[in-house]
């Protein structure tokens, strides 16, 4: 059996003593797109932060491997070096740190020695052009005074520049902004079309099915109360669009 993939097995996680994740099993294969859907409070964002190693989230059981590497044993920066990327729903603002310097520092640590600053800049401007971003972004302070849409663009630019093996996109609430959705869709598409991103596996976390009009998911999971209660194809997302989460919740309750 191959150990390729982002493989989450029976993952349990607590925040301040409350168990939020109650045994998650999920495998994101290279090059595949998985959608993780669920109502508010089901634990979707907790899964994203658990995978990336946020200090406030305590793993209480289970394993996660990235192409065979034990992810949970690593500090957040080592997880990124292993090839994991999280697009934040609410990225932190860091005044005084310029976007260009930050991106260069990040790229240098994730893919050391590959690019000179000059070549990096060329790559950066190329990616920004593809994403329709103004070069003036580079001189601004990281997320400082950025609009919601600008933050989203910067997250997508980082994804493009770092070329992760697995990208977790925490889009839970941004589904409210139609432009942002389209932008995320285009970004994922352009990464998948690049040499670097052809094998990237995606886990797209969303409350609303709308984002899936812009990105076709191979697999759709539904999460409720810290567990994945249903897994299916793209038709599952369409069903949620039509019916909401209630009928799935009832089915799950009947099964229990």
């Amino acid at each position, binding site marked *: 059996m191959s150990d390729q993939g982002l493989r989450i097995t029976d993952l349990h996680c607590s925040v301040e003593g409350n168990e939020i994740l109650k045994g998650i099993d999920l495998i994101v294969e290279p090059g595949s797109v998985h959608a993780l859907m669920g109502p508010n409070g089901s634990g979707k964002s907790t899964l994203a932060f658990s995978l990336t190693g946020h200090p406030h989230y305590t793993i209480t059981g289970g394993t996660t491997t990235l192409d065979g590497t034990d992810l949970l044993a690593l500090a957040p920066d080592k997880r990124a*070096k292993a090839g994991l990327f999280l697009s934040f729903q609410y990225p932190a603002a860091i005044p005084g740190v310029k976007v260009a310097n930050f991106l260069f*520092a990040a790229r240098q640590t994730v893919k050391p020695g590959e690019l000179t600053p000059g070549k990096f800049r060329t790559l950066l401007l190329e990616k920004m052009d593809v994403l329709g971003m103004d070069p003036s972004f580079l001189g601004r302070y990281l997320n400082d005074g950025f609009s919601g849409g600008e933050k989203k663009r910067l997250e997508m630019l980082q994804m493009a520049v770092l070329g992760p093996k697995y990208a977790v996109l925490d889009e839970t609430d941004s589904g409210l902004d139609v432009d942002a959705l389209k932008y995320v869709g285009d970004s994922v598409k352009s990464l998948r079309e690049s040499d670097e991103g052809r094998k990237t596996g995606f886990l797209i976390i969303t409350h609303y099915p709308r984002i899936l009009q812009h990105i076709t998911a191979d697999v759709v999971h539904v999460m409720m109360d810290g567990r994945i209660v249903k897994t299916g194809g793209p038709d599952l997302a369409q069903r949620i669009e039509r019916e909401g989460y209630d009928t799935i919740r009832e089915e799950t309750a009947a099964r229990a």
Partner: protein
Amino acid sequence: MPSATLTDRERHLERFHATRSGREKPGRYWKIDLEAVEIPSDAKPGGSVSIDAPSSVIAVDMQVALRDHAAALARVAGVATEPQHKFAHLTAAFAGLGALIHLPADRAIDEPIVVTYRAQGDSTLFPHTVVLAERGARATVIERIETGDGAFVCGVSEIVTEEHADITYAAVQTLPLDARSFFTRAAKPGVNARIAWATADIGAALAVCDIATAIEHPGVEANVASLFFPTGTQHVDIVSTVDHRVGHSTSQTLVKSAANGRGQARYLGNIRIAAHAQGSEAGLRDDALLLSKQAHIDSIPALEIAANDVKAFHGATVGAIDDEQLFYMTSRGIDRQQAERMIALGFFEPVIDRFPTQALRDELHDALPNKVL
């Protein structure tokens, strides 16, 4: 030739001892009593000054100023500093070293005027910089101090301007780590004049600085920027005061400080708006970053606002590096130490931007990383 006779000196020393600094007594963190600062027994007037200025302005040392420019000197010297500034009395007691920069009307100087004081082997230095800007004149003045180890420096800078003048005064204090530094800086800008202070305290075992701006005319724009960063066992004590005595002027005070090791700092940010100073706008932003458990910064914004038709803003933070910022950066592959360094250095950028020349900004960019470690 000496400007202070023995009797003058005794009088000034008496006032130095009699005047309270107004600072808190030593406590759990802060270890130095400013009311009991000992003057070195070999204290004397001395040192040298060199002034880098174009010939279109009057830029002379204090001896020449006393002899040839007494009227200009009298318009500024002692006028800007308030009698309650304890350490200004000490500078006066050992008067002799100094510079007068006198800008004629409408003279705009693009290249910064650099005033450099050198201790020349003496252990004490008492520099007095006087700036007089006539109507519509514009210039940037940079003060530099060079001493040996263990120096005791006690200086005054005073600025008086006429209407529509625009003066930026910058000083980056990088004295040896066993030196002591006391500065009293004061300005009285004219109608519709602009005054900007940019000071940084990087060196010295003890750095004390008062920056006072008295707004007595409408239309003034006053900017105060201060950066300090005690590490090891350094102590830094800064008081900034913007006194809106008449209305329809604006002031912005921006202070960014960090402390590492067992570094200690105190900052008091006074904003006063008098009852009749309607239409004043005053902002005070003061952020302090603690990089070690033993480091401490006491930061006190003090707003006394007696007028009712004013816009006043103040915001202050004291804390360690934010967990969410750190997590965000490390999630991009940057290791914790580098992330902390980038965040801490980035924290100072808004105030570094207030320094008027690239050379000063570069100097700060070079000095700060060694303090973050």
